[in-house]
Structure formats: structure tokens, C-alpha cells
């Protein structure tokens, strides 16, 4: 009787590992940037290349950095979520227009709506490297001290906004 339990135990252990493994997403690589100061940059503003913008201008209040591009299909999928969030005016949303052509980016925003307080242009993807971007869209929540509190890779959903981002905005 006891011997018969051994295969069962082995099966349960393997099943347990496989069950957990099914839920893991290899694309969700934990970012080493969470808990660290948001990397600095100084980039031209989309649609107003004379003006430059950097994270220092946001010191003292939390903000979202959303990495997007007009060539990015998943960005269109998450776009309504951002437009909704922008309407609530809970947090400024800055767009990092990643490796895009400005005229195409501007046309894209005209067509689908512009949820961004402003977008900055990272044409060569250098700031993207500093932020560890590898799959657009990506979203970062930076707190009032300029520290990254949360990073999401892939399309935002209303659940993520509701359950992850908004609670972080409430806790100082």
C-alpha cells in the first residue's frame, strides 16, 4: 500500500511544477528598474521638436510613461484603456514614441485619440535601452520622488489599471 503511494507522490510533484509553469509567462521578465530612479533623458517633444522634455520636469508628482509606436499593433489594442484613464485625469500620461516616424505618430494620434499629456520622440531607441524596453507597449509608473514603482510589458487592461496602477497612486 505504501509503495503504491510513491508514483502518486511523484506525479503530484510533477503536476504541481507543470501547473505553476503553465501560468508563468516567459515574456514577463522582472525588471531590475522597479525600485530604482527613472533614467534621465532629454528628448524632443512630438509635434514640437523645438521643445525638449525630461523626467526632471515631473519631479514632485507621480506620472505614467507609456512606450508606444504607430507600427505597434498591441498599442492599438491598449489605446482605449489609456484614453479612458486620461479622461479620469488621475495621473499625467507621458508617451515615449519609440523608433517611430514623427509624421506617422502624429497621424496615429489624430486617428485614434491622444491620451498623452505629451509624447517625446525616441527615434533611435536609445532611451528605450535605458528603460530596458524590449516589447512595445510598455508602461512605467514613476512616483513623486522619481522612482519607478511598477512596470508592465504588453497591453494595459482595465484590470491592470484598476488593480495595480491606481492603488499605487493612492499610497504615497
Amino acid at each position, binding site marked *: 500500500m505504501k509503495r503504491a503511494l510513491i508514483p502518486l507522490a511523484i506525479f503530484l510533484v510533477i503536476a504541481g511544477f507543470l501547473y505553476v509553469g503553465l501560468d508563468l509567462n*516567459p515574456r514577463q521578465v522582472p525588471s*531590475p*528598474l522597479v525600485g530604482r530612479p527613472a533614467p534621465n533623458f532629454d528628448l524632443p517633444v512630438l509635434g514640437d521638436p523645438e521643445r525638449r522634455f525630461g523626467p526632471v520636469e515631473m519631479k514632485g508628482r507621480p506620472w505614467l510613461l507609456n512606450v508606444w509606436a504607430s507600427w505597434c499593433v498591441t498599442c492599438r489594442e491598449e489605446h482605449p484603456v489609456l484614453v479612458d484613464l486620461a479622461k479620469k485625469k488621475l495621473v499625467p500620461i507621458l508617451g515615449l514614441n519609440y523608433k517611430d516616424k514623427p509624421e506617422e505618430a502624429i497621424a496615429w494620434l489624430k486617428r485614434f485619440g491622444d491620451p498623452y499629456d505629451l509624447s517625446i520622440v525616441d527615434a533611435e*531607441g536609445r532611451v528605450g535601452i535605458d528603460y530596458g524596453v524590449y516589447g512595445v507597449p510598455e508602461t512605467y509608473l514613476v512616483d513623486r520622488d522619481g522612482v519607478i514603482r511598477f512596470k508592465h510589458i504588453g497591453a494595459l487592461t482595465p484590470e491592470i489599471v484598476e488593480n495595480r496602477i491606481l492603488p499605487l497612486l493612492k499610497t504615497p
Partner: protein
Amino acid sequence: MTTRLAARLGALSLAVCLGIASAQDAAEEERFRHLAGKLRCLVCQNQTVADSGAELAGDLRRELREQIRAGRSDEQILEFMVARYGDFVLYEPPLKPATLLLWAGPFALLAVALGAVAWITLRRRPAPEVRELPPEAREQVARVLGEKEPK
């Protein structure tokens, strides 16, 4: 005479410079290949930055070349990448508490398996000898089973 000498000296120094430059290029190229082979392209996760055709890998290759040219050491460059993309960017994960299971796991499993084999072999009692039934017993069995002739 002096112009010819000057020309020769000029040609010689040019050759030396070119030689040094190409040796430097070769060393840079070697370092570049070495580093690009150590880094994972996070877009197509089972390819290195050297092999991947993804755009991000191209950007990271450019970053590598620039940093090598700027004279940064291999360690500094790898640190730069890990600070941005995490340990996952390294094809060979570093040994630290979080990765201990990864490194020691296979050996632990091997030890468990060897232990199990040893336990089973040591515990096994010698197989009992198979003895022939004596003729009287065979007849008795045949009778009980209702057979006429013992086989």
C-alpha cells in the same frame, strides 16, 4: 634623395599605423563577438544578440560597439545591460541565492536519484531459490487439479 627618403618614411609610418589600426579593429571585433554572444535578445528569447535579426538586437549591437569604442571594460558593459534588462539578458545566469535552484537543481536531482537506486539495491533481499517439486508433491497437485497424468 631627401624627398625619396621622406616618401619612404611616410609610407612606412602609414603602413605601421594601418597595421596597428587593423590589429585594434580585430581586437575590438573579437570583444564585440564575445559580448554579443553572451547576451540574450529579449525579443526572440532563444537567440543571442549576435544571432538575432530583431530590431532591438540591432540596437544593442550598436550600443555594444559604441561602448567598446568608448573604452569600457567587458564587465562594465555587461553591468550596463543587466542594470536595464536584468539577469535574464545574460545567457549564463550568475550564481546567486535566487538562481541557486537553477544551478544546483540538476545535481540535487541526480543525488536523489542515486540515493534511491542505492536504497533499492541495498534493501533488496536475495531472490529465493526455485526448487523442483518432489515427484510425490507433483502427483498430489495433479490429483487435486483433476488431471490424469502429471505433466
